[in-house]
């Protein structure tokens, strides 16, 4: 290689590069607080990454350029292709997969680090060994857990919670075993801890990662992924401690905080505790089996819906998970455009947990070029509801369910909702009367001011748009 600088890892210059690098990460995330600066922020963070990688490549003694090049080039190709190809609706899966890769890399590095320490033949200092064990265990859990989450979201594995009797006990025993084995390894730290035991722990952590996520319902995967994201971050920080690498410590900790905050935010918005999400097997993806369908509903066709909408003054669109499934965002935007041409004031009401990821709807609607100012938050839109002529619910369900306000025994009781039942009229677009993520019936559908348009969201939006144009 032409440019081998041979820097000492603990030299002030290398450390200074790492300081610049993590500062750029912080500034990058900081700029992510507003849509207009977020893209620039992302580039700043990427620049920080470039500096960190370049510095490391210039360290003294780094060789094996062939293998490094293979890893970097292959990774870049996969990364570029994947990022181009992925659908915006597939973001949750993508995040899960990437998170798993990160966790896997951490676990592998911990293993290699352990082998390196063993090879030195000396006592392994505990202040490096403990973080190594931690990053190995947590990274491995994160890898396997994220992959299961990916499988569930992608439909490779059933989204149903898979329960084995005594599940919780088994997990607890497994965790206890891992901790015990780590203690044994730690006690042996100056007389050559057994590599066999180490690999056994790696495998046990892998099993735990699987068992931990399998019993959680597919719809709860975003919370799980976010939690595993925090795990990956913390394991990276631990690896940084083991490797004496400040930028790893800081970057890992930032990711850890991010995962923690997002997990908490999602749980709060769903009015559930994290424990309930992880251990209650609640988030079953709806089986499609309808609930009590005896009560009468008002059904409506695309043409009537078009008339109602075109003669309204103000319309609020409430998108939900169904819009993501149907990939209906472009059709919805076109429908709104047609309404705009008729002089109707159209806004979008975005519930914080609509869809399956925080900010899911925002990303999809942004993809369809809906202006940012049109996306109203729940708190902003609810007071306006009584003055809204028509609320159009597109593939949303739980986030509009009045039971959250009215029925203290409902599983979603206390979750704040978009109060479409306060609007003058409501049109609900979904394929059937079947429940959403929470698996409960929605009184909204049987309300006298509600008309149901039973159809796929994309189809329905396109039909309505065409009808409006023909009016």
């Amino acid at each position, binding site marked *: 290689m032409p440019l081998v600088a041979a820097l000492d890892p603990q030299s002030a210059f290398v450390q200074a590069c790492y300081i610049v690098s993590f500062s750029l990460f912080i500034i990058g*995330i900081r700029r*992510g*607080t*507003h*849509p207009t600066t977020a*893209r620039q922020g*992302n580039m700043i963070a*990427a620049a920080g*990454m470039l500096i960190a990688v370049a510095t*490391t*490549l210039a360290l003294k*003694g*780094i*060789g094996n350029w062939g*293998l490094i090049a*293979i*890893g*970097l080039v*292959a990774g870049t190709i*996969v990364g*570029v292709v994947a*990022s*181009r190809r992925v659908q915006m609706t597939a*973001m949750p899966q993508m995040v899960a997969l*990437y998170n798993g*890769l*990160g966790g896997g*890399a*951490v676990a*592998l*590095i911990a293993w*290699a680090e352990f*082998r*390196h320490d063993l090879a030195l033949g000396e006592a392994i200092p505990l*202040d490096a060994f403990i973080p190594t064990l931690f990053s190995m265990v947590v990274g491995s859990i994160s890898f396997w857990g994220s992959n299961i989450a990916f499988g569930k979201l992608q439909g490779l594995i059933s989204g149903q919670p898979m329960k084995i009797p005594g599940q919780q006990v088994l997990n607890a025993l497994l965790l206890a075993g891992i901790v015990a084995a780590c203690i044994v390894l730690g006690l042996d730290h100056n007389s050559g801890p057994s590599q066999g035991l180490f690999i056994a722990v790696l495998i046990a952590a892998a099993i735990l990662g699987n068992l931990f996520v399998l019993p959680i319902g597919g719809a709860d995967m975003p919370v799980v*992924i*976010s939690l595993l994201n925090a795990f990956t971050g913390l394991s*990276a*920080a631990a690896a940084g*401690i083991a*490797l004496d690498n*400040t*930028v*790893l*410590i*800081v970057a890992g900790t*930032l*990711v*850890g905080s*991010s995962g923690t*905050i*997002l997990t908490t*935010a999602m749980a709060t918005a769903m009015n559930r505790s994290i424990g309930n999400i992880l251990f209650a097997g609640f988030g079953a993806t709806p089986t499609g089996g309808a609930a009590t369908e005896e009560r009468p509903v008002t059904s409506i066709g695309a043409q009537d819906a078009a008339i109602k909408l075109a003669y309204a003054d103000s319309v609020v669109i409430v998108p939900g998970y169904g819009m993501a499934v149907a990939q209906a965002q472009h059709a919805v935007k076109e429908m709104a*455009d047609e309404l705009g041409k008729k002089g109707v004031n159209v806004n979008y009401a975005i519930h914080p947990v609509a869809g399956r990821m*925080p*900010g*899911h709807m*925002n*990303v999809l609607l942004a993809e369809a070029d809906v202006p940012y100012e049109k*996306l109203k938050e729940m708190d902003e839109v609810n007071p306006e509801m009584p003055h809204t002529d028509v609320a159009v619910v597109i593939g949303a369900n739980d986030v509009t369910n009045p039971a959250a306000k009215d029925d203290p025994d409902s599983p979603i009781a206390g979750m704040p909702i978009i109060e479409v039942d306060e609007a003058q009229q409501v049109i609900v677009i979904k394929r059937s009367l079947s429940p959403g993520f929470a698996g409960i019936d929605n009184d909204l559908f049987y309300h006298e001011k509600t008309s149901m348009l039973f159809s796929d969201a994309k189809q329905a939006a396109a039909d309505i748009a065409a009808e409006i144009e023909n009016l």
Partner: protein
Amino acid sequence: MPLITEITIFVLAAFVGFEVISKVPTTLHTPLMSQTNAIHGIVLLGGLIVVGLSNFWLDNLIGTIAIFFGTINIVGGFLVTDRMLGMFVRKPKKEEPAEKKTGDGEKE
């Protein structure tokens, strides 16, 4: 570096993380997740050190896989975040979307 110094750095970084990230609005949480995914690709550094300094096939294998994983994380993560965030920004150059926007945006 003594462990306690590294803990000092960890504690301060955690304060920074909590303060900065709690300012990110829900709207941008999905891009945030994929950006942090890219950032924890930083473990790539560990892979580089492992492969760069070792000569045994198993270590090389482990390390190269780690580099591969880490690079996918970084490259894929930053690019996909960029793609997402690009959607939040108005695109004045493309003619067609600008046309469309009039229908939805300006008629209030």
